[in-house]
């Protein structure tokens, strides 16, 4: 076992496996499963125009998000990652199964904190609210991204690179976590056996995360493992039927509104407070901070 875990691997081989899970899964998992969900909606008489337009808006946001990611990546992100790897890193780790498993676990752990941060600060929620604003819950919602959704993970993945992991491996591990998490966006799967529900993030746990019911706010941030939520006090089981969406509904399937509504609402909140300090605080305080301030003033 130790020999297996510490055996040096070829990049070509590792890249092949990640390609199989990260890229090709769109063809053999996501698209077929989404078609199955559409059939399910039809069977339940829930296949409305709104569902279809909402799904189209979701797909458009992923294209906009990807474009932003590519521009940022080409301009400076790639250079930053490699500079950090060369200059600010612990001794570089060899490419072994041990390294890959640890990297995926670390990527999942940092995903938890990245996700939690995006929910708990104004600028984070301004972009991540896009993902939560759909009132439906299907595979296409997994691809509903906000304009700055690619920025926050950088803050958490650079430290992994500093710990000696190869930047490309970190990127592949992050996409792997994201892909696993994307699989959970479905109403078609109920609760899984208890041991699985205890350790892993599941569709049930993730439905809770997308719930607008008050007790479900800011819960179940995990990517692959739900144990992070159990360890850090943010776990909530699915009990009450989940109402999907956000506290202030978007009521639109216009892709431009969907993509930018969070930033617009953040800007609107900044207009409501006076003084530069307060305006900057809106960026880092939790969502709802402005409303609470106004309530206090009254």
């Amino acid at each position: 076992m130790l020999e297996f875990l510490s055996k040096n691997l070829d990049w070509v081989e590792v890249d092949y496996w990640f390609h199989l899970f990260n890229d090709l899964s769109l063809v053999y998992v996501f698209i077929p499963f989404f078609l199955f969900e559409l059939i399910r909606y039809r069977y339940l008489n829930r296949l409305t125009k709104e569902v279809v337009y909402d799904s189209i808006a979701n797909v458009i946001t992923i294209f906009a998000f990807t474009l932003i990611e590519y521009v940022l990546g080409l301009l400076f992100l790639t250079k930053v990652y490699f500079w950090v790897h060369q200059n600010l890193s612990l001794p570089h780790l060899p490419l072994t199964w041990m390294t890959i498993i640890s990297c995926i676990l670390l990527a999942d752990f940092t995903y938890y904190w990245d996700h939690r941060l995006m929910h708990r600060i104004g600028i984070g929620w301004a972009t991540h609210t896009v993902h939560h604003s759909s009132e439906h819950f299907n595979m296409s919602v997994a691809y509903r991204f906000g304009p700055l959704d690619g920025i926050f993970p950088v803050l958490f993945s650079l430290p992994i690179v500093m710990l000696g992991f190869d930047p490309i491996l970190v990127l592949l591990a992050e996409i792997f976590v994201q892909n696993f998490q994307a699989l959970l966006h479905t109403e078609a799967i109920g609760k899984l056996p208890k041991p699985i529900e205890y350790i892993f993030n599941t569709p049930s746990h993730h439905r809770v995360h997308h719930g607008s019911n008050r007790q479900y706010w800011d819960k179940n941030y995990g990517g692959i493992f739900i144990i992070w939520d159990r360890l850090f006090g943010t776990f909530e089981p699915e009990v009450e039927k989940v109402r999907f969406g956000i506290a202030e509904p978007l009521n639109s399937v216009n892709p431009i509104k969907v993509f930018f509504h969070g930033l617009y609402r953040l800007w609107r909140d900044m207009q409501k407070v006076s003084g530069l300090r307060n305006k900057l605080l809106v960026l880092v305080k939790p969502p709802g901070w402005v409303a609470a301030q106004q309530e206090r003033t009254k």
Partner: protein
Amino acid sequence: MKNSTLLFRSLIIIALLAGIPHLFAYATEQPTPNVAAATVDTTTTEPTKNDFILGNWKVDYQTPELTGAIIYTIKKEGEQFTAYTHQYADENGYTEQAERTKTLVITQFDGYKGKGTYLVAYEGKKYEIECQIDMVDENTFKLSYDYYGYADVETWKRA
């Protein structure tokens, strides 16, 4: 939950998840051959069935930097095979003696497939790229590599 508890638990998790692979790497460390600085072992080695790879090999290049061919000489050095540049040939067939530069180190070779390190200089920097060898026949092999998405396959023909 208190912030200090969150911080403490997070630090423990990071130390574990990052520490274990470093411990593994340390415990199972194998001396990485510094191919660039490796000294040439000129001592005679026992001939093996894979020695047919020794000799001169020609590779054609059609790139913006080089249009023509390079002839390499593969020698046996200890347990590994090493290729050195031997001669340049331009597209018109004019040849010129090349400075003897170590270009390829084949660390594993079973007569059919092999692995090694391709030593590439690009824009003043030297890169050590893992590569694969696949014999097509006794007089041809493919050398392939994938360096962070920059992949290429070269055909080496016996000269």
